[in-house]
């Protein structure tokens, strides 16, 4: 019995050099004839059927006839590996001795069987299990962040007396990154927001001939809410993302491990300067942002309404009570603390690969922005209750 199987071509046409094999099962020993070009381009990737040797009696020897074999590459080895497996299953003895030497050596590297496909995914845990698991993890995370916050606060107190061990150089670098170098972007964003507010406000207020109240509108909205939030969102994207990326990269480079082994607490070396600098700089950026936003409104108002500059500015100063500024200032401080703490925590929890750095940066920014807006809502409720 002789079966001839022209393997299905992968690329190229049927040519005499096409890889082909035929099994001569009549003779003893069994003979597998291989001919043609057994490389990937000439269709050498044909699989040998798993049951191709099922007619053979166990214990027989399978010889390979390679006299008509031309070129070969790893595709040939792939085919031979299949043959060897089929021979194993049928209890046939595979004799590689007639193969070219290099092919024998490569074949010898391969294990008897390819790896089993991974076991099917386990069924998802019951609903209550998952809820319980999530809750526990949430509580655990809250605890960890609280400990981090407490350690940073303690470190900040110690820093006042100069005993924290924090390097002033690190603090200076972080202060620069979280403050002066953000002036431009915070300025642009706040200017535009102030200008847009004034524009929309003017169009509506004009219907009631109350143009001049646009000064109050812009002033109060920016001082109380918008500048604080916009500045925090910009800083969450800018500095929060940077903190998370830096810390997770340090984790991947084993720098965090090196700190721990050297006995340098991560909290004083990384967390303290990062969190401190953002918390110190954000309120200042908020004040700067508010002034720029008011200026943005002023520019639009001056071009759209008939009034004097002095009049507009006087209305603004009279319209904003000092406590609006204090409220915004305090909020900014808390926003900054939250953004920095969350970013550091996300960075420290990240995995160690390049992909994990990206995930950590994204997560830090998302948590920062959502958290800031949620906190602002909370502040609004508190202010309402306290009647500020």
């Amino acid at each position, binding site marked *: 019995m002789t079966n001839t199987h022209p393997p299905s071509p*992968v*690329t190229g046409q049927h040519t005499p050099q096409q890889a082909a094999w035929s099994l001569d099962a009549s003779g003893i020993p069994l003979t597998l004839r291989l001919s043609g070009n057994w490389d*990937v381009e000439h269709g050498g*990737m044909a*699989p040998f059927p798993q049951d191709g040797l099922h007619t053979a009696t166990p214990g027989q020897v399978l010889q390979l006839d390679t006299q008509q074999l031309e070129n070969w*590459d*790893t*595709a040939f*080895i*792939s085919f031979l*590996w299949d043959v060897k497996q089929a021979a194993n299953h049928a209890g046939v003895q595979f004799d590689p001795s007639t193969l070219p*030497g*290099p*092919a024998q*050596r*490569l074949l*010898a*590297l*391969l*294990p008897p069987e*390819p*790896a089993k496909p*991974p076991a099917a995914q386990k069924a998802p845990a019951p609903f209550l299990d998952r809820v319980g698991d999530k809750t526990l993890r949430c509580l655990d995370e809250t605890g960890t962040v609280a400990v981090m916050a407490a350690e940073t606060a303690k470190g900040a107190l110690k820093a006042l007396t100069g005993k924290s061990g924090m390097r002033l150089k690190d603090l200076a670098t972080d202060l620069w990154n979280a403050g002066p170098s953000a002036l431009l972007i915070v300025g642009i964003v706040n200017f535009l927001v102030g200008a847009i507010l004034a524009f929309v406000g003017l169009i509506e207020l004009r219907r009631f001939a109350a143009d001049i109240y646009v000064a109050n509108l812009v002033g109060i909205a920016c001082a109380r809410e918008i500048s604080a939030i916009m500045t925090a969102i910009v800083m969450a994207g800018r500095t929060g993302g940077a903190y998370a990326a830096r810390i997770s990269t340090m984790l991947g480079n084993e720098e965090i491990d090196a700190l721990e082994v050297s006995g340098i607490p991560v909290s004083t070396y990384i967390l303290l300067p990062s969190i401190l600098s953002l918390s110190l700089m954000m309120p200042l950026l908020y004040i700067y942002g508010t002034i720029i936003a008011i200026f943005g409104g002023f520019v639009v108002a001056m071009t759209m309404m008939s009034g004097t500059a002095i009049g507009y500015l006087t209305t603004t100063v009279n319209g904003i009570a000092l406590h609006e500024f204090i409220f915004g200032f305090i909020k900014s401080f808390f926003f900054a603390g939250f953004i920095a703490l969350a970013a550091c925590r996300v960075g420290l929890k990240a*995995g*160690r*690969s*390049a*992909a*994990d750095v990206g995930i950590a940066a994204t997560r830090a920014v998302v948590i920062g922005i959502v958290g800031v807006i949620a906190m602002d809502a909370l502040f609004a409720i508190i202010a309402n209750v306290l009647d500020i």
Partner: protein
Amino acid sequence: MAESSDPIISVHDLTIAFGPKVIQQNVSFDLKRGSIFAVMGGSGCGKSTLLKSMIGLLRPASGQILVEGEDYWAQNQRRRTELNHRFGVLFQSAALWSSMTVGENVALPMEMFTPLRPDVIRRLVELKLGFVGMEHAVDLMPSEISGGMRKRAGLARAIALDPDILFFDEPSAGLDPITSARLDDLILTLRDGLGATIVIVSHELPSLFKIADDGIFLDAKTHTPIAHGAPRDLRDHSTIPEVMAFMNREATVQDASATKGETHG
């Protein structure tokens, strides 16, 4: 088609530099087909930098690298990329792409540069991982496997396209002696099996003596190659103090003459 006795790569009077800082100059050598060529020298002598200029990552300041007679750096970017498909590179830290599984790492060059069907690629990935004994790790992420396994997976990726020339940057760095010896055997078997030519940057002496049959020794002080030949021959016959000190693992050049003739490895 080039004669099989022609060198596969020939380097002529190469100078590699970072700006005004010369790393190595007057570098000339021929890479014989089927040889295992060792680039040797102390730390910081520019071994890896020479490798970088051979695989297209760093343009040399002057000189030529001829790949089968074709001036590599005189070609445009597209032609260089085509030539690079004939190269397989194992980087020092394996450089597996961390967002992909081991199997996807090996499959990517085939998906990008061959018209093969996905099922064919899957079988080839299985095969190449099988060569390096990593077939069980096909669905694992690089972060889930050990350093030695990453090296082997990187090797499987380097041979994905059946390259003619394999470049290894410190293949045994960070591996235990047994794993390192196994990797040596694997390199030899792959060289014979695939018919590839191998360039290996290393200062692992036992491994170099075992597998390399040609080489060049770069000197960090004079910024030039000071010896050519197989590491074994350099160890046994070189009279250059720096080379002798290196091959016999001596601390200083002065000590080398005292223990002349002793061999190591």
